[in-house]
């Protein structure tokens, strides 16, 4: 293995490759900031450029730079304007945006960059050590286990079920699941609930929904209340990147846990970064104690570090099935697989034996992209964060413009913009009625996957016995139940103790 790594290092580290990765990171970061252009589409766009380079490691180095850059760019728009352009960064906006509103945009971006970097690094170390061994674990996961994982992911909703809001959070989740059932599904033969409308045939578009639920109501709120666009956002505080010792101590265990958890989820083909980020958020919220837990959703640094770490670790993890089995676990890795094949590299069990230099140089290139991104972006953060100090009369039109272009580019359909406005108005009414909006999006994203995996398992076993007969499924489901019950128990205990004290 060591020889292979050295060989990979030699191939990866050249001046040309260094330039390529810098170029890739910059392009990825800036394009990734536009909601609607996620890592998948940017990589797809960059493939022709990469292929003309001819050399597989240079091509992958460029794509790796673009990939990590795009992920960071996506987090930026989630944090600064609450516009998560891809599903994987939805959980980032839960706490990242409130932090930015409190005037800590610079710090939020730094935490995002550092936790993504750590997630990627720990993920890469795990990849180095366990890639061959893990490939067999990936195959152990069947639809039943995926179903249980989705249930575990849904526990993230608990974070939005504040005081007396449990019913509301559940209602929004159900609304999200309902929306997910509209249109064609992978498993069934006819589209459902389209009401005969052609535009709904392929289902609701994620990006339109995300923009309408998150970015638009926030922009409207800034219009409603002019004072809101000013508070907390002084130029000084916004540029402040420093993470204090206490804060570092707080997020270090989160990063450690989520790197491993995210990586393992990423290894399973099909689960991917989105689930990892929700699960990371949910788990960290549910195991946090007292005040820390109450902070979640209001600008908690833990709540920001968890999904960012998990997201990146999962991205790294998804290279395990890609490189060792030739199975692309996510849309992005599927596109990378296409690029690799075009470059005459066929990932699969033989790759490591036949072509160790390429195998390791791909892994090293990906990691290289991660390192360069951190070095490149930390100095850029103050400038990116300063975008928020643009005067309100110019900032709001641009925020709205970016939300619309996100929904428009993907579909090239102006009707989508009208749907966006209509849903945005609805979402604003929900906000007035104090319904949390995040559960709707979580339900929408996980609902479809949940149904697919559940249906597949039922179709295999003919009943629901898989829930208790498969040990891993049962284990995961028990963990999910505990995740909900333990915080509730802790809360009621704390309440009783407080009541006793008063008495």
């Amino acid at each position, binding site marked *: 293995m060591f020889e292979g790594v050295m060989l990979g290092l030699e191939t990866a580290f050249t001046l040309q490759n260094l330039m390529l990765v810098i170029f890739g990171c910059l392009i990825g970061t800036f394009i990734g900031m536009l909601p609607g252009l996620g890592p998948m589409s940017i990589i797809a766009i960059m493939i022709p450029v990469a292929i003309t380079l001819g050399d597989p490691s240079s091509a992958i180095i460029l794509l790796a730079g673009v990939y990590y850059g795009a992920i960071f760019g996506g987090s930026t728009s989630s944090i600064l304007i609450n516009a998560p352009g891809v599903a994987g960064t939805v959980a980032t906006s839960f706490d990242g945006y409130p932090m930015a509103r409190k005037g800590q945009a610079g710090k939020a971006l730094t935490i995002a960059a550092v936790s993504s970097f750590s997630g990627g690094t720990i993920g890469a170390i795990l990849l180095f050590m366990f890639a061959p061994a893990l490939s067999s674990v990936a195959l152990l996961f069947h639809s039943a286990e995926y179903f249980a994982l989705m249930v575990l992911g849904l526990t993230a909703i608990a974070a939005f079920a504040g005081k007396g809001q449990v019913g509301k959070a559940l209602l929004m989740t159900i609304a999200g*699941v309902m929306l997910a059932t509209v249109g064609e599904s992978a498993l069934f033969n006819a589209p459902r609930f389209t009401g005969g409308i052609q535009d709904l045939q392929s289902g609701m578009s994620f990006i339109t929904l995300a923009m309408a639920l998150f970015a638009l109501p926030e922009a409207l709120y800034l219009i409603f209340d002019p004072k809101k666009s000013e508070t907390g956002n002084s130029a000084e505080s916004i540029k402040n990147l420093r993470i204090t010792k206490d804060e570092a101590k707080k997020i270090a265990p989160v990063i450690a846990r989520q790197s491993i958890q995210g990586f393992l989820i990423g290894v399973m083909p099909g689960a991917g970064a989105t689930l990892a980020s929700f699960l990371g958020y949910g788990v960290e919220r549910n195991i946090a104690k007292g005040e820390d837990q109450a902070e979640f959703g209001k600008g908690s640094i833990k709540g920001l570090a968890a999904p960012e770490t998990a997201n990146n670790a999962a991205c790294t993890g998804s290279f395990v099935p890609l490189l060792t089995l030739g199975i692309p676990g996510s849309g992005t890795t599927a596109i990378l697989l296409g690029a690799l094949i075009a470059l005459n590299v066929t990932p699969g069990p033989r790759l490591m034996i036949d072509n160790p230099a390429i195998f390791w140089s791909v892994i090293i290139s990906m990691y290289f992209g991660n390192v360069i991104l951190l070095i490149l972006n930390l100095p850029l953060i103050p400038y990116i964060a300063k975008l928020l100090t643009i005067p309100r009369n110019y900032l709001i039109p641009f925020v709205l*413009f970016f939300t619309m272009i996100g929904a428009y580019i993907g579909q090239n359909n102006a009707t989508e*913009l009208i749907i966006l406005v209509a849903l945005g108005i609805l979402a604003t*009414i929900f*906000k007035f009625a104090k319904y949390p909006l995040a559960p709707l999006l979580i339900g929408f994203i996980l609902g479809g996957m949940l149904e697919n995996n559940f249906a597949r398992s039922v179709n295999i076993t003919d009943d629901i016995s898989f829930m208790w007969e498969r040990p891993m499924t049962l284990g995961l489901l028990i963990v999910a139940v505990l995740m909900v019950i333990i915080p509730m128990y802790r809360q009621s205990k704390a309440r009783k103790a407080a009541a006793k004290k008063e008495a």
Partner: protein
Amino acid sequence: MNLDKVIALIFMVISIVYGYTAYNFQLLPFERNMPFLPNTMPMAISVLGVLISLVILISKSDMDDDEGEGMSIKRLKYYKTGQAGAILATMVIYALMLRGVGFIPSTIFFLFGSSWILGERKIFKMAIVSVLGTVPIWYLVQEVLGIYLKPLPW
């Protein structure tokens, strides 16, 4: 009745209609013997939807505990709803313009128009900002990334 209860009531009606549609979903002949049908989960969630909206309807509304944070309906009268409405209307006009007029003129119109609505009156600065905000984005999306965005009316 509080707004949140109205929403719960509407949601209950939607759940019932949704459940009814799911119940009457046309199954294909070979689907009938499958253990899990296309309408299995929709029927289940419509029942859940009705139950949860009922719970919200009968439990105490929390709309009155104002935490002083976030949007609140009580402050609605102080909010600039007119401005917000006008901007939403501009967004709809923008959507309608895109196909006929093209990306560049409609975006310049939108950026200029919405900052005008927000109270900006420095026409020269607004014009420059709108043009500088539009053309590079169009160039990036269409020329660099190759995603077609019809630039002009012709």
